[in-house]
């Protein structure tokens, strides 16, 4: 339990834990001490720990006391051959400097800069860090996805429907442009706008004739669709005949005209 606590919680929160006391008769297993020392996040963390542990006032730090405490921890870390980050030594220098500045008599005329408490910057940093340290812990206590709650995920089987490619008119236009650009068919296959409707009608007529039987000529026309359509249909039938796709028969003069898909008879 206590070991778990140690690894999970900032050391400064464990007030009065005998484990953290300096060796005053009490035996500390060396690896436990190492764990404790390693757990400091840096000089600020260590200082905060000392301040809280010895009930010092952050806003009125007794520099001599704090510096002494700090130095003894640094020594202990060095004894245990812990890799001591440069920041720890730098902080030691800072503490000593503040301490000595406080020993100097204050100049009688207090200009704004000189008059500042030599501890002010250190205090600001300690408070700011402590705030963030606490914030970190609060963040850690918020429920986290995957750790403290699971996200719902229900399966979708996507075997249900195959997706088909979509084609737009623009795709067809591009395809045609590509063809034109490649081939010399410019002249060959020039087709007018109106002729597209003729082509469509040719397809329509051929569909009507699909049975292979003769169909009465007038049945191929839809009278209700208006004159332009009738003309187009007529041209379509002529075009089909020209391309040998249909044959047109009239058995007697003024008799009925019949159309059917062409048979081998018309072979050239």
């Amino acid at each position, binding site marked *: 339990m206590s070991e778990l606590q140690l690894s999970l919680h900032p050391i400064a929160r464990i007030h009065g834990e005998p484990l953290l006391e300096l060796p005053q008769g009490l035996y500390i297993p060396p690896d436990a001490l190492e764990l404790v020392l390693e757990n400091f996040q840096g000089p600020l963390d260590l200082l905060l720990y000392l301040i809280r542990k010895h009930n010092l006032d952050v806003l009125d730090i007794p520099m001599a006391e704090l510096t002494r405490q700090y130095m003894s921890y640094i020594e202990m870390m060095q004894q245990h051959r812990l890799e001591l980050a440069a920041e720890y030594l730098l902080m030691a220098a800072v503490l000593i400097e503040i301490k000595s500045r406080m020993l100097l008599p204050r100049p009688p005329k207090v200009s704004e800069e000189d008059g500042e408490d030599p501890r002010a910057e250190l205090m600001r940093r300690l408070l700011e860090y402590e705030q963030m340290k606490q914030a970190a812990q609060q963040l850690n206590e918020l429920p986290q996805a995957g750790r403290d709650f699971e996200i719902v995920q229900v399966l979708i089987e996507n075997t*249900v429907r195959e997706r088909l490619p979509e084609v737009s008119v623009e795709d067809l236009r591009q395809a045609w442009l590509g*063809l034109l650009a490649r081939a010399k068919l410019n002249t060959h296959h020039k087709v007018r706008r109106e002729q597209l409707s003729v082509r469509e009608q040719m397809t329509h007529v051929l569909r009507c004739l699909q049975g292979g039987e003769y169909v009465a000529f007038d049945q191929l026309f839809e009278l209700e669709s208006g004159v332009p359509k009738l003309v187009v249909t007529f041209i379509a039938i002529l075009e089909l005949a020209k391309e040998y796709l249909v044959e047109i028969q009239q058995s007697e003069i003024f008799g009925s005209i019949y159309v059917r898909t062409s048979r081998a008879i018309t072979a050239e």
Partner: protein
Amino acid sequence: MSEQVEPLPQSEAPLPVETEPSPESVTVCTDLFGGKMNTEQFKRVIEAALLTTTEPLPVSELKKLSDVSLDNHQLETLLEELAQDWQERGVELTRVASGWRFRAKPEMQQYLDRLNPQKPPRYSRAVLETLAIIAYHQPVTRGDIEEIRGVAVSSQILKTLEARGWIEAIGTRDTPGKPELFATTKQMLDDLNLRALQELPSLEEIGALLEQEATTAG
């Protein structure tokens, strides 16, 4: 926080999913869970477990969710009840080879697709050109298409377009070999959102565009 002894709050109003509980199951489960968890609460736990797992959960796994030991039959009765509770929803509880799992009903697919617009596949240039030729020159034979494209047209291409319902053979040309004549279908017009073939860009426009390009390039 720390004083929670009971796994779930007991004071809750009856859970809304509760359909008429069969008296049998209630009896089984007040016995089963004693003061700890009632059937409905245990169902909520199973439900939460199944909803948060995409892999099917075997009965042997689901057993771990209970504080008391359950036999397979009891658990399966509960699972069937749960499946029942869900049957009107868009998601259903199903039993598959390796266990139980929730899945979206197939009829939800059309809606869910709207949220995951996977890039639709595209047709190759060969397919598009073939389609364009059939659209503009119909009725045409495979030979016509090959002549215009300058390369052989694989049967695969025509099959693709036929399978899609966009082209069909509407007859044969009366030349040696009786080649089939292909034309586009109404389906193709529908799918391209056209009322008639004339609504395709006219070839004249396309030609003009090309000439323009040629002259500006020259």
